[in-house]
């Protein structure tokens, strides 16, 4: 656009430019003519003046001759000398002036100074000068003896000169008189011409001025009309467009024009020149606001290319809280798009386009939920196809029970902070168990959700502000999220069990439930139809694949030895707890214990770590269940530092405890020696959950460890309790 306007400057102002050129040319011509005529007028003035002087000189010559004759006769020496001198001067002046009229020459002017006398121009004047010369040639010859103060003339010569002067005096006077008249006529003509030129010049200048004014007014009116049309188009566009449009200045103020939809979209009155940032700040979270501020600064700066920062825009699909004119809080999603507006290659503004993308975002969320549900169903299908049905069935039963346990705990009013914290730890242990079991079966959707929930709960516990009523409500909402995922999984397992002709246990009745969808989904219990007891418990395969997966995720290599002697003959509730214990201990072993190959090699250990999960029958109904790894071991000093750093112990308290006492603290909720928490460990939940499970089977936990050598957890219990 700028380039076009640059090219069309001459075209746009062509008429005015031509008018100005015409004005300059006309003025120059008039001034030139005027200057020439002024010069000529000067010449005419000299000519008229000198021709008038010729008249005077002709009379003076005659007079001086007569006076010289009288002085001569009276022998008045003084008179003779004076008159001769006078005559000489007069004759010379007359002669050179007449010559000037004829040929053009330098003469003595009226003021005694040299002046250039131009040759007469008209035919009349030339004839008058020629006629004058006819008389003057003879006259000048007769005067020669009397000139130059010569006293060598005689009376006859004087007499003849006087006689000639008397005879021609009138004629010379007439000729010079006529010459003067003719020169005056010429001067008048020239003056008339000058007047005419001035009049013509004035007329041209006036016409030119009138033309310029008319053209300018017409152009201005045309420009105004186009501007008005353009403004009307802008107004129409801004009134019609659905998006919120406005320009943002470098000081982050709104421009003078914005689309009519903008106030509606932002749910507030918008005025030109308003500060944009406070408006934005009132709508979005502080984090998004900070990012948006940085982003807008980047866009308004000249250093960064727009295309490079577009992807950094933090204001796409951003949730905003808005209060409308009725005071109604509305949760909407808006997208703000920013484009630099350049003038002569420099950023002048940023064009902001605001779109209400609420419907789109909600649709995306619904799609995401549908996808999540589909994923659950597909995962269940894959589990059924590639795994044993009994484990999946067991998982569904266990998870249903776990969720009910959480809900039951939540339904008990929590009167004090300690009770709430106790409830929170209880729920965390259960969720941790669900996470572990889901991980064993590879049900990512539940594992991931359990992990996300666990992180939220850890944040609540670690906030140091206690568990608030709002947080209790949040836990209930998280529980509903579990139920949604669990129901989808249970429903598909039930349908597939039906399709495969497997028997299904009757779901327990659900009091108060009017919608039997949940009853069907949440309580479906599938019977194992495995024809014979496998040689190896299915859990061996599950825990082995889980361990390999976690090892791979952490870049570690392991060799697993898993021997579960008599495992299948244990009561189901005991094997269930032992499975939960082993899942957590394996996670811990692979996260904190076994080192990465490079570290192991550096400590002169085999590159591949060893992980042993054993269950030994000790006789008399007693069992020893153990998980052992040959990793870093429990390092009391590191644990001590970790406890001090997390604020659980003061330096003095930590120093006062023995290594054994410090090591025992790993079973307390929230205690972890991991530097970084991840999906597998580090939240201080796992060993707390392990201890609860050990208590559930009335077992006893024993830990052996040697730094840089091994860690060994033993659970001793009796199946005959």
């Amino acid at each position, binding site marked *: 656009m700028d380039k076009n306007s640059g090219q069309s400057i001459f075209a746009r102002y062509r008429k005015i430019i031509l008018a100005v050129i015409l004005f300059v040319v006309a003025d120059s011509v008039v001034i030139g003519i005027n200057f020439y005529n002024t010069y000529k007028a000067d010449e005419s003035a000299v000519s008229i003046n000198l021709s008038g002087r010729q008249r005077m000189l002709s009379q003076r010559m005659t007079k001086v001759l007569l006076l010289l004759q009288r002085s001569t006769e009276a022998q008045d020496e003084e008179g003779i000398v004076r008159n001769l001198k006078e005559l000489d001067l007069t004759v010379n002046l007359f002669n050179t002036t007449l010559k000037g009229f004829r040929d053009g020459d330098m003469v003595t002017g009226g003021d005694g100074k040299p002046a250039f006398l131009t040759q007469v121009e008209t035919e009349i004047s030339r004839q008058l000068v020629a006629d004058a010369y006819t008389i003057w040639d003879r006259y000048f010859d007769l005067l020669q003896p009397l000139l130059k103060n010569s006293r060598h003339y005689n009376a006859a010569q004087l007499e003849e000169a006087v006689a000639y002067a008397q005879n021609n005096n009138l004629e010379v006077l007439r000729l010079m008189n006529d010459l003067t008249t003719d020169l005056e006529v010429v001067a008048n003509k020239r003056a008339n011409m000058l007047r005419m030129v001035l009049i013509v010049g004035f007329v041209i200048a006036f016409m030119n001025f009138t033309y310029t004014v008319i053209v300018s007014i017409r152009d201005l009116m045309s420009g105004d009309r186009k501007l008005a049309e353009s403004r009307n188009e802008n107004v129409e566009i801004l009134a019609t467009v659905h998006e919120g449009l406005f320009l943002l200045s470098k000081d982050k103020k709104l421009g003078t024009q914005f689309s009519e939809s903008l106030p509606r979209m932002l749910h507030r009155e918008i005025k030109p020149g308003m500060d944009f940032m406070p408006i934005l700040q009132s709508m979005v979270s502080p984090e998004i606001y900070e990012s948006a501020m940085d982003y807008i600064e980047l866009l308004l700066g000249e250093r960064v290319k727009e295309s490079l920062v577009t992807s950094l825009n933090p204001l796409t699909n951003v949730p905003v809280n808005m209060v409308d004119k009725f005071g109604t809080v509305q949760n909407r999603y808006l997208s703000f798009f920013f484009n630099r507006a350049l003038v002569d290659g420099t950023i002048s503004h940023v064009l902001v386009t605001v779109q209400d993308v609420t419907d789109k975002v909600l649709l995306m969320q619904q799609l995401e939920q549908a996808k999540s549900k589909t994923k659950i169903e597909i995962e269940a299908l894959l589990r059924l196809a590639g795994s044993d049905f009994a484990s999946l069935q067991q998982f569904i039963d266990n998870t249903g029970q776990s969720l009910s346990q959480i809900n039951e705990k939540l*339904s008990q*009013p929590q*009167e004090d902070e300690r009770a709430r914290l106790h409830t929170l730890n209880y729920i965390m242990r259960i969720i941790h168990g669900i996470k572990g079991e889901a991980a064993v079966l590879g049900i990512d959707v539940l594992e991931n959700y359990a992990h996300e929930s666990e992180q939220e709960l850890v944040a609540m516990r670690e906030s140091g502000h206690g568990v608030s009523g709002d947080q209790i409500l949040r*836990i*209930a*909402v998280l529980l*509903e999220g579990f139920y949604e995922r669990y129901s989808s999984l249970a429903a598909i397992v039930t349908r597939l069990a039906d399709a495969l002709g497997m028997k299904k246990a009757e779901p327990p009745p659900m009091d*108060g439930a009017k*919608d039997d969808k949940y009853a069907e989904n949440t*309580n479906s219990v599938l019977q194992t139809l495995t024809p014979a007891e496998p040689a190896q418990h299915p859990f061996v395969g599950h825990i082995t694949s889980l361990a390999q997966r976690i090892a791979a995720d952490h870049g570690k290599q392991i060799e697993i030895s898993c021997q579960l002697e008599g495992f299948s003959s244990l009561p189901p509730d005991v094997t269930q707890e032992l499975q939960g214990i082993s899942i957590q201990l394996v996670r811990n072993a692979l996260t904190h214990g076994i080192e990465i190959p490079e570290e192991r090699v550096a400590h002169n250990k085999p590159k591949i770590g060893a992980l042993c999960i054993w269950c030994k029958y000790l006789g008399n109904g007693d069992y020893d269940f153990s998980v052992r790894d040959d990793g870093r071991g429990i390092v009391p000093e590191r644990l001590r530092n970790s406890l001090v750093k997390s604020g659980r112990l003061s330096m003095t308290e930590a120093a006062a405890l023995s290594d054994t006492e410090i090591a025992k603290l790993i079973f307390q909720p929230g205690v972890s020696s991991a530097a970084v928490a991840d999906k597998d460990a580090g939240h201080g939940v796992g060993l707390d959950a392990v201890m609860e499970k050990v208590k559930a089977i009335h077992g006893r936990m024993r830990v052996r460890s040697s730094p840089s050598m091994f860690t060994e957890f033993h659970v001793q219990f009796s199946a005959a309790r």
Partner: protein
Amino acid sequence: MKSINDNDIRSFVDAVGSFFFHTTNEKVEIRAAYLVEGEIQASTFDLTSYITLSGDFSGRVYFSAPRVMVAHLLLAMHELERDDDRLLDAVGEIANTISGNARKHFGEAMQISVPVTQVTEHDWLNSVVSPHSYVILVKWKQYRASVVVDIQRTA
């Protein structure tokens, strides 16, 4: 599928809290939040009021409180009459406040019925609410009341 979140639920509970705070200058605290499921039932008290929502969300929000708690509330409000009609009016007022907050929270598109009030038996709510409705037990003074949120997204 329920798609309401804790903010949605909190808007109802906050309304109850706001009512009590403005009338008695005392706060209401959440003591428990759970889902209606199997043996775990919604807490029904002597007097219950509810509003019915339709639009992008549909369902009902109930407020149920023991008679003694509402009577104490009227006392705190310097009301002399404390018969059943007056007690039901009070729980109706609380449902009205919930309605106002719901309108603010969900916007103008939400249609909300006038509050309905009734004297209720101990398990009445269990016979009317959907499984997995949210039950939030709140405490004012030494009393407990329940806010039961049984709404689902329809749009």
